[in-house]
């Protein structure tokens, strides 16, 4: 079945450093979505990428969708302590269900 791999599993950074998480799918994706989950919280939608090669920015966050629509990345510039949490990518299955990666847990040291 469709699988979504995500690396790294953990990332510890000093506040102000950049952070990147990468996502790869075993199959071509119709779209990819990114979610953030704070400790003890639920996944919160960040963004959806649909087009091949698409790049979207939200303040310090930059999201990319690969040309082949099989990989994606999330880059955070100059991390802040409020960025702490687990970032998940998710590909969409045929019925709209989400297939999540394992997530990258980001910790930021002040």
């Amino acid at each position, binding site marked *: 079945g469709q699988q979504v791999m995500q690396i790294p599993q953990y990332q510890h950074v000093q506040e102000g450093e950049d952070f990147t998480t990468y996502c790869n799918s075993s199959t071509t994706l119709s779209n990819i979505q990114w979610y953030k989950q704070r400790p003890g*919280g*639920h996944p919160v*939608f960040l963004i959806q990428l649909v087009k091949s090669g698409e790049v979207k920015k939200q303040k310090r966050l930059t999201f990319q969708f690969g040309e082949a629509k099989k990989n994606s990345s999330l880059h955070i510039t100059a991390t802040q302590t409020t960025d702490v949490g687990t970032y998940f990518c998710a590909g*969409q299955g*045929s*019925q*709209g*269900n*989400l297939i999540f990666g*394992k997530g990258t847990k980001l910790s930021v040291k002040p």
Partner: protein
Amino acid sequence: EPEVTQTPSHQVTQMGQEVILRCVPISNHLYFYWYRQILGQKVEFLVSFYNNEISEKSEIFDDQFSVERPDGSNFTLKIRSTKLEDSAMYFCASRLDRQETQYFGPGTRLLVL
């Protein structure tokens, strides 16, 4: 802003007991989902529901699980005979259509003893 709600927030049950987890999706949404997340692990798809029937289910969603939309607002997940490994956070999600954002509820933390 409309949101997905779930009750209860926490549920503790004995192994072998039945539990019903409740969700109220966003009112005009048409697609409904259940996911679970075992502590420290990724979010896993369980089942999707559309037009009053299951549209897809994962291999996790075996005969012990069932879903229902008993009225126009509630969407429930029933586990008939809970097992220890059913302990997890269960998230309900809904969306307006298949291309729109999926909104997650706050989750129900289920602990099976």
